[in-house]
């Protein structure tokens, strides 16, 4: 049986390494860093970790409603498709750095894609 990316990376403990790569990329990305201004970084990192867990096929309980409600205030500040794309790009780069192959990265991007309408409140 094929492993999920979550399992391939090493499960829960690997998410710490993954989130620090991903979160740093996002904060350093001028296209999207402003959406992270003024947030509690510890809380934000925990949410990022939950998001990565979900995107990599790990156990999660996020619903579409959670993603929609959680991003509404950012949509009000101008969050749009280009920003969503930038996040997915950083996600892909994170996985590359962790040695995950392109075809699997595409699978993760597809999972992330399913959240687009909820995240952007479309």
């Amino acid at each position, binding site marked *: 049986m094929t492993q999920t990316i979550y399992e391939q990376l090493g499960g829960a403990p690997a998410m710490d390494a993954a989130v620090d790569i991903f979160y740093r990329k996002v904060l350093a990305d001028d296209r999207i860093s402003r959406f992270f201004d*003024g947030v509690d970084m510890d809380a934000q990192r*925990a949410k990022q970790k939950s998001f990565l867990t979900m995107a990599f096929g790990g156990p999660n*309980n996020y619903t579409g409603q959670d993603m929609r409600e959680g991003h509404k205030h950012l949509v009000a500040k101008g969050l749009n498709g280009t920003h969503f794309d930038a996040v997915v790009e950083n996600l892909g780069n994170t996985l590359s750095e962790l040695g995950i192959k392109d075809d699997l990265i595409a699978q993760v991007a597809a999972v992330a894609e399913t959240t687009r309408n909820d995240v952007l409140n479309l």
Partner: protein
Amino acid sequence: MFLTYKDHKIILQEGQSVLEALLETGESISYACKQGVCQSCVLKTVSGQVPTASQVGLKPTQKEQGYFLSCLCKPEGDLEVVDCDDLGFKVPTSVVSLEKLTPSIYKVRLKIEGDFAYKAGQYINLIRPSDQLTRSYSLASVQAFDTEEIELHVKVFPGGEMSNWLMSLSEKDSVEIMGPMGDCFYLPSFKDKNLLLLGYGTGLAPLYGILKDALTQGHTGDIHLYHWGNTPEDLYYQAEIDSIVSKNAPVFYKTGLEALEKDSLEAAPHLSGEACVVIQKDLTDLKDWKIFLCGGEAKVNKARRIFYLAGADLSDIYADAFFTWQKPQVGAEKVS
């Protein structure tokens, strides 16, 4: 097994988590992932032990205060838990002294007249007995030395209700406190780590306590203290800190004025320019450092982000952000 929360005693079912048990009784506890990752369901135990497995991902200073993830917690004995922002009871104190350190910064010493235990670097809520006016202040004292007295460094703002009231007090006047709160304090496990302490203005207060606490506990790593301000007056306690530095190696101390251009000669003997820029040049790799940041919200958040991007673990950055209370204006959003 019994779980107590807000005066309710609940019997836990076999294998039930604290979160499940509380939700079942109708309590509204925040939660989201139920996997121990998002940390929405954090509570605090005030009596009883929680399994260490239910504390994964929390900072060491949060674990020390009994914080745990209620979705993961399957207790092995009776527990009494409270919300994390539960401050317990008001503790009476009386004024010992008010001393002007600079035209706008006062050292306030209060005598504790009840049970109160704290770790150097934590903060308290100060409450005016007449109308319950409440403001938060960091503790600059160390319980081992200052025993029943606590020390606060209060910046007096024009029109500041609490700071101006404090300045009007006399010896033996009553002030109530609640707490302690905050994750910014020293732990024995930090003993051989390097410490970076960065404070803006009266943000020095908790760092001064942490510095003394670390040295008393036999800290062996380097300690780098950076005190930054807008004007030379903000850089108080230089003599006290110089004295500590002269008696303890390796402790390093630099002061600076952010408002001036980098390398400006007007700043002398202090440095000039942004604290974070100076620090990144001095300390190139912050991996494994324990970092304590204290001062105005915007500066602290900016520093935290810069140090995280420079390689520090987010869980190694302990930040105490001060915010200034503003009077709500008609029609404007209330600032809290």
